[in-house]
């Protein structure tokens, strides 16, 4: 996989992790961004041409101020597909990225191949309130996100030495910038009424969920399946909310089985 840069017509400049060959798959990352290592993308690139763009506000991508609400994010997703010159790619998304991918598919239901959602955000159930990720201490994050928090913590920091003040400062600034961006569609409640639009979906849909997800609990998988006729749900054992990172092989296998 290698990094490329694309400019959208709206004026954002986005970094895209790209590799492999085959049918195009666009993968949208979640609120935490792509981590240093993304083995599931390498796995998918064995079989598909994979594109994993970073949202504005993440990494080297710019144009943060151009995206303000859900419609902006979803249209930006399509702008990226255009800028990459793709036609009817499969869309995949994790967490916030799944929420946006689903929104994109509702807006332009005929413009994609299949839709794969990994523990997507975007719905809200009063009986299962999602923890407020904007009100967590740094060390609490891994507990909520991972089936195995200790391993998760190492994945999150990507090996950076946070006892070094400069490294800590850099990590803090980048993290503030990422979540400031995510807050535009996730704060204070990660629900921008996507449920009203899901009836428009036409693409074949797969929903994968970490069986040990403590952020968006698996009860939400059933809610998604109920809202999307014909959707298939696949739970993945030994994974929390960060299932693509915790069980990259099982995740890749599930997607390959679905996308063909």
């Amino acid at each position, binding site marked *: 996989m290698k990094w490329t840069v694309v400019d959208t017509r709206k004026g954002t400049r986005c970094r895209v992790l790209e590799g492999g060959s085959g049918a195009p798959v666009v993968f949208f990352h979640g609120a935490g961004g792509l981590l240093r290592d993304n083995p599931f993308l390498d796995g998918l690139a064995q079989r598909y041409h994979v594109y994993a763009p970073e949202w504005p506000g993440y990494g080297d991508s710019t144009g943060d101020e151009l995206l*303000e609400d859900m419609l902006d994010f979803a249209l930006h997703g399509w702008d990226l597909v255009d800028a990459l010159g793709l036609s009817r790619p499969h869309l995949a998304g994790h967490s916030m990225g799944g929420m946006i991918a689903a929104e994109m598919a509702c807006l332009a239901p005929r413009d994609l191949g299949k839709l794969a959602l990994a523990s997507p955000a975007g719905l809200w159930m009063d009986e299962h309130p999602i923890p407020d990720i*904007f*009100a*967590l*201490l740094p060390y609490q994050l891994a507990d909520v996100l991972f089936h195995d928090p200790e391993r998760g913590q190492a994945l999150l920091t990507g090996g950076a030495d946070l006892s070094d*003040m400069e490294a*800590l*400062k850099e990590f*803090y*600034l980048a*993290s*503030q*910038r*990422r*979540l*400031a*961006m*995510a*807050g*535009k569609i996730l*704060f*204070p*409640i990660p629900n921008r009424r996507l449920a009203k639009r899901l009836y428009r979906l036409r693409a074949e849909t797969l929903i994968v969920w970490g069986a040990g997800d403590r952020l968006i609990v698996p009860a939400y998988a059933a809610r998604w399946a109920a809202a999307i006729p014909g959707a298939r749900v696949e739970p993945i054992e030994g994974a929390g909310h960060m299932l693509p990172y915790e069980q990259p092989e099982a995740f890749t296998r599930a997607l390959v089985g679905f996308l063909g």
Partner: protein
Amino acid sequence: MKFTWFNLMPWPYLPDDFREKHRSVWVDIPNTLYDPRRGHHVYHTYLDQLEYAETLGFDGIGCNEHHQNGYGLMPSPNLIAATLSRRTSRAALCVIGNSIAGYNPPIRVAEEFAMLDVISGGRLIAGFPVGTSMDTNFCYGQIPALTREKYREAHDMIMKAWASDEPFAFDGKYNQLRWVNCWPKPLQRPHPPIYIPGGGSIETWDFCLDHDYNYSYLSFFGYLRGKSLLDGYWDRVAKRGKDESPYRAAFAQIICVADTDAEAERLYAEHVLYFFNRCLHIFPPFADPPGYRTMATIKFGALAQLMRQKVLENLTWKQLVDERFIIAGSPETVRQQLEECIKGLRIGHLFCLLHNGNMPDWKTRHSTKLFAEKVMPHLRDVWPEWKHDERWWVHPMDDRLRPEERRPGAETSGAEWAR
């Protein structure tokens, strides 16, 4: 020099083990700790104190807005100011202020402030804070990264509503109103003095200077810590070529006055420590959601904000006094330190926090009276060269009523509306 007596209105019944048992005094404080029957007495005690401050000659009496907060019982400061407007007639009513990013539509603030200004006969000081992240983001649900833009837009609507003599359409990003027509309008023209309370965002300086508003630095950490921020502000004032009137700036300071320094500790230490240990016990993520501060401000303050909570652990009275978090002691001690504070920060307005934590009424009045009689008179003329600068003070009408002296039923029969 103008002195405003300010009450944060803390809940005085937070348990001794509050810090150990609960993670935050703000946002998710267990509301079972609130008791409305006790609350009845607490409100009236605090309101009486504000009225008492007027009788002692304070120039202003002040209140502010906080939500779901153990040290603030004023989700609506306008209600507090409304009761004060009927029971006082001389002091400025300093409402600093309404967190306008959270009001929908913001014309409500233009209307309520106008009502207060008219009822009080032109004594309103109107504050427009962005609001703490606890208030504006976590309690009132505004998106952190968009809060400042929404704030600016609300400000623009309110100021235009006050200035305009004709209905207008407001096509904002966050607020659309086809008919904006402020009724009533404020008494002070073109508008009441505007104070912008800042907690440390550097963008606020330019905003104040663009409009010639007062910049109020509200901190509980004293003037030694406030200095770097106000120095930054005054640098900006100079760079922008504005005059250096000290009345451009205000500062809030915790003050305790007793007959001697030792007596101050004996009388007030437990109440001040109650404030620092319980009332400022805030779950750190509530104070700093991503997007609330701009990247420029985060870089300016580096990681200082992250470290603040550390400073607050295990504070002692000695440390609070020595490091000037608070100004406490005999009238002479307080006078000296306050002069240093006023001159060091170059401020023309002081918000005097003379009630602290769970301080009982009698101690509050004792401290307040000593301050008014033995400290305030000596500091009145710190800025002789700016003596006549009234740009940031109220301009009440001369023939205003004194409703606190009137009794219903005493009107002359047959009197017509004044022409």
